[in-house]
């Protein structure tokens, strides 16, 4: 841990340096990029969910005004054969320990033989303007032989089901299982058992900026630049280079200002590879900007899991056994493999002491948009099951839901706590610190206290009003590896330059990493120059997914700076004619401890370090003041939170109002409190949207029914409640700053907190809410069923 005197900037709510350009309209998003001779791409996308492509006639499209190229999937497959996939490889420790079977249906850049979901592209058109490209796309004529659509994962596993990927002969594309203790025996011997089915519905990240790619080939240097609205520039570069058989050194990928990501921009999409291919083929810069309709029917969706869970417990509500078998409706492709599904498994136990546990997951292909990580990435589904179960156990025994949680929560003195299963990095899960029961009490206090609420609830019921309280707890592995890198360089100007492969999408990284660097070097944050999301700035990078960048990059900055400090001190000692051990960093200088007048500015040390005739380096010290460090985290840090919602339900209309909402959370050491609050509240509101109204709906033919923002409901300013925040501070021992990740957390608990609150409000009707989102019709139906009314 850095001492207090050095942490002058970490911990402070510095205003963001990103704001100025964004507030003046001077931000640059990929759609804003204009290049000379640029052409525009538009796609022809499948109108049906599952069909063989019988014939495509592009002749009218190709002859349309301004058209440069019309390319079908079949022709593309001839020009650009598919290469083996470049998914993130799972660590060998995980592969050899976790029982798994994973088939990987690779998505063609354009569908060639058959289409597998409404919206899958099968022709691309390139023209002088986007208008001309869309006009021509409308002239493409295609004939299909429709196949039965697989829209329900359970039906998709029946022997007579249509097969989405024939080469596998099954729609069951992955199976995973994890266990500890003896769950069967513990279930059999448990005094009480409850079994329920849960469904966490399909919804999505929906950043306000859709995706987009611009690419340009430079013949002189034989190099390609790709500007993509992505969270993973190095991954895009790696796949572009592999697909086009180019050296990585000749491919540069840059993410400009990115208008939100939340996971949906966290992997490589076909367009990231196809647009660069077209730029090479046509020798013109090519631009493709996804429109909102395309985004809703092509960019990855998330969640969509059906769980059959069983829990065994004693008379005091102590959980003795927990078994969960679940299905993931994966859609037509599975770009992140086991990522989401294993996340669900690893987060089912949550903050509780449960000795006997087993989870079995099946991943099923269907004719829908691919399912991939979105803020929470498998954890909201786990929280829905576990936290609903806690309330059901409480209801069964006539206990307070909070009390059942208290009795099962891991206590602070048990930390660090070995959970007994592996994380997806292959390491045993060890909760690295925190006070879960205290977070529960904090969150309850923040909504006015449980006892006071129960009294209000009682009074309200007498008046015919239905108030309910719902709790949602979770633990969250954050800052996952394999690595992130930092290059730290001191310029002769005195500026300190940081470069990294982390890719911001609104988190304020230019600000927070300036704070971290400023503290590491005892300089003003304004003297830190930040270069992110550009493969030209650092050779290797991982990117910003999985609540990882503050954790991984701050540690990389720390270690790169430690090494660079040694060299800086060696050269400064030469300049100041003293021993390196007598030196310290202070206010942009290297100075002799206890001698205020003896100091040399960092810029002077950088000048002295330059290669050439007049350098001032001591013997044995090589030129330059730059260090790159790739930090490989030992394993994840564990953030946690408790959400509490109080709802007021109108049982006649099914309408509900969130009367109060509180979050008590821990993300270790906080770099910028203002930005942390912004992340938590933003995430929580996405979770509330998912809990109440956001959802993708398909009909029985696999037609998307929610293809516009008139059908897919996003929360507005007038829909969301005040959210009270309470903070816990348990620094992680796993990284130098003691930080834990927090980008995703807010979105994990709201759906289950709301479901629990509504179930609590309707406890007199013995209604259960085990399916999200909690819709008015569900509430009305539950009340009708309980009261026997048929009106």
């Amino acid at each position: 841990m850095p001492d207090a005197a050095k942490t002058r900037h970490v911990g402070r709510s510095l205003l963001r340096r990103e704001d100025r350009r964004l507030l003046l309209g001077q931000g640059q998003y990929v759609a804003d990029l204009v290049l000379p001779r640029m052409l525009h791409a538009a796609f022809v996308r499948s109108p049906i969910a599952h069909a063989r492509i019988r014939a495509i006639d592009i002749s009218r499209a190709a002859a349309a005004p301004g058209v440069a190229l019309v390319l079908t999937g079949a022709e593309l497959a001839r020009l650009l054969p598919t290469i083996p996939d470049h998914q993130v490889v799972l660590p060998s420790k995980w592969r050899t320990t976790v029982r798994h079977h994973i088939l990987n249906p690779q998505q063609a850049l354009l569908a060639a033989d058959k289409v597998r979901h409404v919206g899958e592209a099968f022709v691309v058109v390139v023209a002088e303007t986007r208008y001309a490209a869309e006009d021509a796309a409308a002239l493409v004529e295609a004939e299909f032989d429709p196949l039965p659509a697989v829209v329900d994962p359970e039906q998709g596993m029946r022997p007579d089901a249509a097969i989405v990927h024939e080469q596998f002969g099954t729609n069951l594309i992955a199976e995973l299982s994890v266990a500890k203790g003896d769950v069967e025996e513990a279930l059999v011997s448990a005094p009480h058992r409850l079994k329920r089915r849960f469904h966490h519905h399909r919804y999505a990240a929906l950043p306000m900026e859709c995706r987009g790619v611009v690419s340009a080939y430079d013949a002189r240097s034989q190099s390609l630049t790709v500007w993509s609205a992505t969270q993973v520039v190095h991954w895009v570069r790696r796949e572009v280079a592999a697909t086009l058989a180019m050296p990585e050194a000749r491919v540069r990928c840059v993410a400009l200002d990115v208008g939100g990501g939340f996971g949906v921009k966290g992997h490589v999409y076909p367009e990231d590879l196809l647009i660069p291919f077209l730029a090479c083929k046509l020798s013109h810069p090519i631009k493709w900007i996804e429109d909102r309709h395309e985004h809703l029917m092509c960019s990855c969706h998330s969640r969509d899991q059906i769980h059959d869970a069983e829990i065994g417990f004693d008379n005091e509500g102590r959980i003795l056994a927990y078994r969960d078998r679940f299905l993931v409706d994966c859609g037509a492709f599975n770009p992140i493999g086991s990522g989401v599904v294993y996340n669900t498994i690893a987060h089912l136990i949550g903050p509780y002491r449960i000795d006997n546990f087993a989870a079995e997951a099946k991943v099923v292909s269907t004719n829908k948009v691919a399912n991939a990580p979105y803020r929470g990435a498998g954890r909201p589904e786990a929280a829905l099951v576990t936290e609903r179960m806690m309330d059901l156990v409480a209801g069964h025994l006539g206990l307070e839901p909070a009390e059942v949680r208290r009795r099962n929560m891991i206590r602070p003195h048990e930390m660090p706590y070995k959970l007994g299963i592996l994380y997806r990095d292959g390491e045993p899960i060890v909760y690295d610190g925190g006070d879960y029961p205290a977070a529960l009490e904090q969150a309850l206090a923040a909504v006015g206290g449980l006892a006071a609420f129960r009294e209000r609830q009682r009074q309200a019921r007498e008046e015919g009003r239905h108030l309910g309280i719902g709790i949602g707890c979770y633990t969250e592995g954050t800052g996952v590896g394999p690595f992130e890198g930092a290059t730290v360089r001191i310029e002769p100007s005195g500026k300190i330059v940081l470069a990294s492969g982390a890719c911001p999408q609104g988190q304020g990284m230019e600000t927070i990493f300036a704070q971290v660097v400023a503290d590491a070097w005892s300089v003003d944050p304004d003297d830190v120059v930040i270069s992110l999301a550009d493969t030209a700035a650092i050779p290797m990078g991982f990117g910003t997914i999985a609540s990882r960048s503050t954790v991984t990059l701050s540690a990389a900055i720390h270690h790169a700076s430690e090494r660079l400090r040694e060299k800086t001190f060696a050269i400064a000692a030469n300049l100041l004619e003293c021993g390196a051990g007598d030196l310290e960093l202070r206010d942009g200088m290297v100075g002799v401890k206890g001698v205020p007048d003896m100091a040399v500015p960092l810029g002077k040390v950088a000048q002295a370090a330059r290669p050439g005739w007049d350098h001032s380096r001591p013997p044995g010290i090589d030129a330059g003041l730059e260090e790159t460090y790739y930090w490989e985290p030992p394993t994840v840090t564990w953030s946690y939170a408790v959400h509490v919602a109080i709802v007021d339900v109108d049982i006649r209309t099914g309408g509900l109002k969130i009367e109060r909402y509180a979050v008590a959370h821990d993300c270790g050491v906080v770099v910028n409190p203002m930005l942390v609050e912004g992340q938590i509240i933003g995430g929580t509101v996405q979770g509330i949207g998912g809990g109440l109204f956001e959802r993708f709906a398909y009909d029985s033919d696999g037609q998307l029914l929610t293809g516009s923002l008139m059908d897919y409901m996003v929360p507005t300013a007038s829909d969301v409640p005040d959210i009270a925040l309470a903070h816990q501070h348990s620094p992680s021992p796993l990284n130098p700053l003691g930080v834990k990740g927090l980008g995703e957390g807010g979105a994990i608990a709201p759906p289950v907190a709301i479901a629990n609150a509504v179930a609590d409000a309707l406890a007199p009707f013995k209604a259960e809410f085990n399916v999200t989102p909690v819709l008015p019709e569900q509430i009305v139906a539950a009340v009708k069923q309980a009261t026997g009314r048929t009106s």
Partner: protein
Amino acid sequence: MAEPIAIRLTVNGKPYEGRCEPRKLLSDFLREDLGLTGTHVGCEHGICGACTIHFNGEAARSCIMLAVQADGAELTTIEGLANNGEFHPLQQAFHENHGLQCGFCTPGMLMVALDFLRLNPKPTEQEIREALSAVLCRCTGYRDIVRSVAAAAQKMRSSGSR
């Protein structure tokens, strides 16, 4: 393709002349023909509000208007808010209150908020929330945007700015 039509309009106090197809969206005309890319396009069907500008002094969604409808009009876009690089009080309030994260909805949010504050200089929080529901933000959860607008209202009242 129909013949291009000539249009004249004033944007951020500056006169422009342009020619475009009658079907061209105003948002595309601003971004492509005038290079004013501060106006963002988030849905192209009039829901998200990112493309909001001021059209003859009133907030309007530029993605569901045609450029030819702006012939003779006076427009203000996000680029017209600051004065010689100095933030408008509303921009300053968004900066100080963390009223933006990714910045994509921000131009629309600012243009809607400014129109609203001119009509209602002393709003309640609920009135601010209802007005801002014209623009979708996916990052902030709105709390800090609402605070920004409330802070701006106070500052604009005391300084008499519009």
